[in-house]
């Protein structure tokens, strides 16, 4: 029955080499930008008073670079190497491999350029504008075709567990990216999210959470299941556990998104759903961690010697820590403390630096000598990298945990008289030493990574790269007649498309049940009659707020705690955000919440905002906010307003025809009002060389800030 005719073929190492180089290069870039923004929080002058180098624009660059450039290329490096070997087949199509590689690098370069230039959708980890979103979709499809082509032309009947993780990743990321990126283009490089307010938040965090799950976790678990057995030269501890790990993980992960929105205006039931599934996640996550670590049973002596195993052990341990902490942070009582603080930053960096970073380093140290047919240039340097990197993680995480806890405690502290103990600015000043130590941690981590780059470079130079690795395997016979009843999973494994569809059904199910009721809310939501659409000028100001990445430091979501209502005013209601395309709730409070910046409690003079944006430090001593001087020189783009208003109307914002037709003159009229008010106080204004002008961008921004949270105050009390 079996035809044992051996076929000779070649593994494509060239594509793996390309992705490996890109991983190392973008890793260094992403970490460097991370270090810069960490230092900006200690020394605000490092914002250099230039729009393109300001924190609000560099922070999305850092997150996108690390997630999609560093880890993204790391995924493809791991997939292209392991997939070929596990399937005993060359990648299906070399041209597709090349399109995939160069297409992905093009996306990264475009992302880097557009983000610093201020083109952003304002949705975290999905900031890229619509043309790039389309390009991502196309390249992802190319990757999928190439992967499935390889699977279909394989010489190994069974799909090893790593490949299920790759299939699950591909299908889920495709779904997440498409659903979250549905947006209405206004112009080239400007769009508005299709969803608004609560719905936008739910979709965004369903995406954001699962970007962590299906971009930073599942593909890396696939890599773990291939490379740890390979490096340790022994099979995975429990293959049974890996099956359960896979199905439980992809099914449960997809539901946990709402834990990013606890105590917000999201309906309670959705929040609880997020919490329950997050707690359940501990089981598969820890199952996976234990499976990874126990693969090294009987080989622990080698961990002392082998730097590859060292990196992998710390990576899997960090995975275990982060996946225990995550569910803990999803408990409402813990989240009440941790949310919006640096605790979250510590948590994600245990995952990013420990799990993703160290696993990538381990794979690179294993892969480069292998593909260049040599040994590592310096084991000593690699060992130094390991220790510097580990110290870097500790110096990063510990101060941030501490800072997060202190921040939260200070925000919630009351005097015996019942007044808030601390001004927000007091808490900012308190953070500075912690931010400084964190920067040292980040610097060490970067130095370690650079040491690796040099080490691998020298390794490559001393060896000879094998672009085409010869291999032999018998042809796979189709239509095998199987006697008796087969195990179900074996059947599924043989049919990759069944696997794909099953995975899609499981993840789509979670997404739908989570989101549909909240989308129905739109029809059922009690409209707050006082909540009106933004005026044309406020809309323009809001777009500037988005452009400058204000949401990276300021939330717009007052949670129903006394400590927050005392500080910011009435807690936020779902009905207040119905016209917010996109929502701007934020996820971090490096600065104070702005949801009611224009409300009764916090309202400030126009001149205060004017001076504060020009030089925050001179108005609020000790502030670490950058200055936005270019907004005092750039002119408001009135011409784009009709298109923006029209787009908003298409999305359901009830602008009248009159407002649409006269939006420019309405905006100019409102700008004149603010200008006249500022003019009265001109001698006290911090002016740019251009002086006070009605059409400066800052006027639109002030209009938006003064509008924030005013609708509720206008509601007559019963």
């Amino acid at each position, binding site marked *: 029955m079996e035809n044992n005719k051996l076929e000779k073929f070649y593994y494509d190492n060239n594509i793996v080499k390309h992705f490996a180089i890109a991983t190392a290069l973008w890793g260094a870039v992403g970490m460097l930008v991370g270090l810069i923004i960490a230092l900006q929080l200690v020394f605000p002058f490092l914002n250099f008073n230039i729009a393109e180098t300001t924190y609000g624009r560099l922070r999305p660059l850092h997150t996108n670079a690390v997630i999609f450039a560093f880890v993204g290329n790391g995924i493809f490096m791991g997939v292209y190497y392991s997939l070929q070997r596990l399937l005993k087949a060359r990648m299906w199509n070399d041209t597709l491999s090349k399109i995939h590689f160069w297409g992905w690098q093009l996306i990264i370069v475009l992302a880097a350029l557009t983000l610093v230039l201020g083109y952003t959708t304002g949705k975290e980890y999905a900031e890229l504008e619509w043309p790039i979103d389309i390009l991502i979709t196309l390249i992802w499809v190319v990757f999928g075709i190439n992967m499935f082509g390889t699977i279909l032309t394989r010489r190994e009947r069974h799909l*090893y567990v790593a490949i299920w993780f790759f299939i699950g990743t591909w299908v889920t990321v495709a779904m997440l990216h498409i659903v979250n990126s549905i947006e209405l283009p206004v112009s080239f490089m400007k769009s508005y999210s299709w969803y608004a307010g609560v719905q936008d938040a739910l979709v965004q965090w369903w995406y954001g959470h699962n970007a962590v799950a299906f971009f930073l976790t599942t593909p890396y678990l696939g890599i773990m299941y291939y490379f740890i*057995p390979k490096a340790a*030269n022994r*099979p995975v501890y429990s293959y049974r556990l890996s099956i359960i790990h896979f199905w439980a993980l992809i099914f449960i992960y997809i539901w946990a998104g709402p834990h990013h929105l606890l105590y917000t205006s999201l309906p309670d039931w959705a929040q609880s759903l997020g919490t329950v599934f997050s707690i359940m996640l501990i089981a598969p996550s820890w199952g996976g961690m234990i499976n990874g670590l126990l693969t090294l049973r009987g080989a622990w002596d080698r961990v002392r010697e082998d730097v590859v195993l060292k990196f992998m052990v710390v990576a899997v341990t960090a995975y275990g820590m982060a996946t225990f902490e995550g569910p803990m942070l999803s408990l409402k009582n813990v989240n009440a403390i941790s949310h919006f603080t640096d605790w979250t930053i510590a948590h994600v960096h245990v995952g990013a630096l420990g799990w993703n970073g160290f696993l990538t380093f381990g794979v690179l140290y294993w892969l480069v000598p292998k593909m260049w047919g040599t040994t590592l240039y310096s084991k000593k340097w690699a060992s130094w990298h390991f220790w510097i990197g580990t110290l870097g993680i500790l110096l990063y995480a510990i101060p941030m945990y501490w800072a997060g806890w202190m921040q939260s405690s200070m925000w919630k502290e009351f005097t015996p008289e019942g007044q808030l103990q601390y001004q927000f600015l007091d808490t900012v000043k308190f953070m500075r030493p912690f931010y400084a130590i964190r920067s040292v941690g980040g610097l060490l981590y970067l130095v370690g990574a650079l040491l690796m780059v040099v080490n691998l470079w020298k390794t490559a130079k001393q060896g000879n790269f094998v672009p085409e690795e010869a291999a032999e395997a018998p042809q796979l016979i189709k239509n095998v007649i199987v006697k008796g009843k087969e195990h179900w999973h074996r059947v599924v494994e043989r049919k990759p498309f069944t696997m794909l569809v099953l995975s899609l059904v*499981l993840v789509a199910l979670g997404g739908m049940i989570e989101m549909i009721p909240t989308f129905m809310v739109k029809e059922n939501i009690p409209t707050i009659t006082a909540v009106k659409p933004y005026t044309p000028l406020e809309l323009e100001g809001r777009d500037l707020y988005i452009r400058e990445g204000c949401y990276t430091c300021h939330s717009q979501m007052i949670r129903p705690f006394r400590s927050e209502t005392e500080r910011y005013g009435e807690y936020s209601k779902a009905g207040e955000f119905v016209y917010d395309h996109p929502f701007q709730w934020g996820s971090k409070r490096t600065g104070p919440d702005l949801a009611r910046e224009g409300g009764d409690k916090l309202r400030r003079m126009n001149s205060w905002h004017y001076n504060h944006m020009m030089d925050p430090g001179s108005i609020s001593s000790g502030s670490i906010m950058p200055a936005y001087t270019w907004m005092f020189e750039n002119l408001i783009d009135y011409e784009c307003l009709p298109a923006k208003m029209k787009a908003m109307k298409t999305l359901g914002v009830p602008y009248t025809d009159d407002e649409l037709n006269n939006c420019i003159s309405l905006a100019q009229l409102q700008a004149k009002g603010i200008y006249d008010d500022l003019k009265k106080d001109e001698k006290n204004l911090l002016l740019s060389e251009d002086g006070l002008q009605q059409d400066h961008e800052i006027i639109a921004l002030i209009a938006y800030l003064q509008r924030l949270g005013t609708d509720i105050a206008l509601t007559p009390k019963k």
Partner: protein
Amino acid sequence: MKFIHYLESISGVSIYPMISLLLFTTIFSYVLFTTIRMKKKEIDEKSHLPLD
């Protein structure tokens, strides 16, 4: 300002968490049950795939 609970206004909303719980329990139990029953030989064969 009085806000009614959004959830209450969706008809039959209580069915959603029930569906989810039921689906999860069923699928997970099935995977668990059948995986445990897999044969040792088959398990060994598959777990050695990266090493072949």
